[in-house]
């Protein structure tokens, strides 16, 4: 962090970035105090997309909330569903069949691919590349979204997971299509990297910009690729080993300095690790049930699903960080308390610390590299 001396107030320029700004990724506002182009202070202002998601969920059944979790982080509905399903299964003690676990992992990793390529595309857009990397990313994303559509019925608002399994089974055609994506994705990543990784302008813009030291990152509860770019080895897939992640052989890429470039490149490497997981999962997926038969009556009558009094905190490694759901049940069909631990909200904690002393243009790409989705931030 660079200390900026206090200048006379008339020499600084106060400017509101957002809520209507093309690169704040939604309706997000940054109150900046600028000295020339240098940032003296930055305050994030949230709540423009607030819809009291938690209040809504406390007034409807557990199953109906699944559709609302899609709307949290609308880029990867699959992982949101995953986290919620895990929390409810913990609460009610539901077992998940083997095949369903595999399907869940496949979908979550596909969602991770979707999220990371989209984020890198938007990061480059913030940097001023005129949509080219973004559209290359979208070209690949479309193929994955096609799979989501065939499987769940919707491209983005999947609503695919159910307590104790998933909504629909994966057919052999689906599996072959996913395998084809996994086979072709490395070639796309090579092209993407040829376009970006060694590009001098990108390196000049990204390297040594927005450095987040490891101790600050841990102390600020940062999670996800942003934390790992700072060099902290913490991935909930490894730590908790939830679902069946313990069975796969994959590794966690770590960054060196924790700047924007590391955040970009850790995401690229994470995609490659995801591909490894997908490859293994697709080869190992067993035959069997895709939904716990005991939960079938609850599917037809969601109001009969009444977990015993208690509480549960289920968390997963979503592409943005730790996504957790804290549920308190009072034995009625509606949860007594439903709380979302949203990674993109909590990752914003450090925004001011790493932006101070940088230029205006840097603040934009730092925000882009932290990767927020306002649906999840504001809830």
């Amino acid at each position, binding site marked *: 962090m660079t200390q900026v001396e206090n200048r006379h107030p008339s020499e600084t320029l106060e400017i509101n970035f957002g809520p209507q700004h093309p690169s704040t990724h939604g309706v997000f506002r940054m109150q900046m105090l600028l000295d020339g182009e240098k940032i003296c202070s930055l305050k994030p202002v949230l709540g423009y997309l607030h819809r009291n998601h938690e209040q809504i969920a406390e007034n409807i059944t557990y199953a109906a909330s699944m559709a*609302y979790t899609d709307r949290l982080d609308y880029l990867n509905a699959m992982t949101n569903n995953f986290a919620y399903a895990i929390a409810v299964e913990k609460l009610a003690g539901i077992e998940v069949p083997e095949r369903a676990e595999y399907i869940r992992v496949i979908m979550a990793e596909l969602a991770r691919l979707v999220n990371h390529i989209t984020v890198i595309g938007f990061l480059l857009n913030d940097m001023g590349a005129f949509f080219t990397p973004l559209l290359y990313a979208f*070209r690949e994303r479309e193929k994955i979204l096609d799979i989501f559509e065939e499987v769940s019925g919707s491209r983005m608002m999947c609503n695919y997971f159910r307590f104790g399994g998933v909504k629909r089974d994966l057919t052999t055609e689906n599996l072959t299509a996913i395998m084809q994506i996994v086979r072709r994705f490395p070639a796309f990543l090579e092209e993407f*990297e*040829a*376009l970006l990784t060694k590009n001098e302008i990108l390196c000049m813009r990204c390297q040594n910009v927005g450095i987040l030291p490891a101790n600050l990152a841990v102390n600020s509860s940062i999670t996800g690729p942003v934390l790992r770019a700072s060099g902290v080895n913490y991935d909930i897939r490894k730590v908790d080993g939830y679902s069946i992640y313990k069975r796969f052989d994959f590794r966690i890429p770590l960054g060196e300095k924790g700047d924007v470039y590391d955040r970009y490149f850790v995401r690229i*490497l994470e995609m490659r690790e995801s591909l490894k997981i997908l490859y293994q999962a697709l*080869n190992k997926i067993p035959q069997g049930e895709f939904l716990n038969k005991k939960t079938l009556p609850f599917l037809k009558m969601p109001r009969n699903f009444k977990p015993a009094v208690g509480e549960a905190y289920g968390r997963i490694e979503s592409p943005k960080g730790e996504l957790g759901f804290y549920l308190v049940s009072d034995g009625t069909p509606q949860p007594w308390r439903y709380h979302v631990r949203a990674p993109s909200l909590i990752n914003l904690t450090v925004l001011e610390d790493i932006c101070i002393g940088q230029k205006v243009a840097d603040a934009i790409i730092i925000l882009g590299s932290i990767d927020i989705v306002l649906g999840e931030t504001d809830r």
Partner: protein
Amino acid sequence: MTNFPSKRKSSGIKQWDHVYTSSVQNAPSHHWLKIFGAGALKGMVVTLKNFVTSYFRKPDQGGIFTVQYPEERYPEIENYRNLPFLVYDGSPDKVRCVACGICERECPPKCIYITMETDVAGKPVRKPAVFDIDYAVCMNCGICEEVCPFDSIFMDHVFEIASPRRIDTGMIRHQEDLLKSSEYLQKIRPKTATMIDEKKRAAEEKKKAVVKPPQGPTV
């Protein structure tokens, strides 16, 4: 176990490890890319290649991947869900729906409104008198379809429903707009419709078996 035809014979870790590691990152340090500006030029080669291939490659191999919407259309996917509709068998007055109101109760954004029909004497009939869905509120989650015990409400494939008005004749759809024949369901969702038909037939047979009068003792 699903086995995929693979060019590589075994799926051991070492077989695919090199495929999923970054060649750019692992480039040797004496690489010619060390010249300043070479990375940018390489990026320009990538865009030039995409420019050229956009003229004669197929969409999934680096060609143009956009769909020219009104003329070209994306192939319809059976599981696609958009907005709910009601199914009738044969003629529109034979609605499958019995106005039980489960979907109304379970709908998360509460966009369904049902009242039961009454006959002349004022006794309720198992048929909806009013069945309204506010399409502007519906969030396409598909829960109504899942919970319906009579297989009467389904998610449609129609998505061109834009309307300049929100209330009258706009986004609030009444029963007569929502009703669609079971043939239509068969057309858009062949698998689901066949499954439901089979289930119905089985149920009917079972009913017949139960209704069959008990045979007297054979002498």
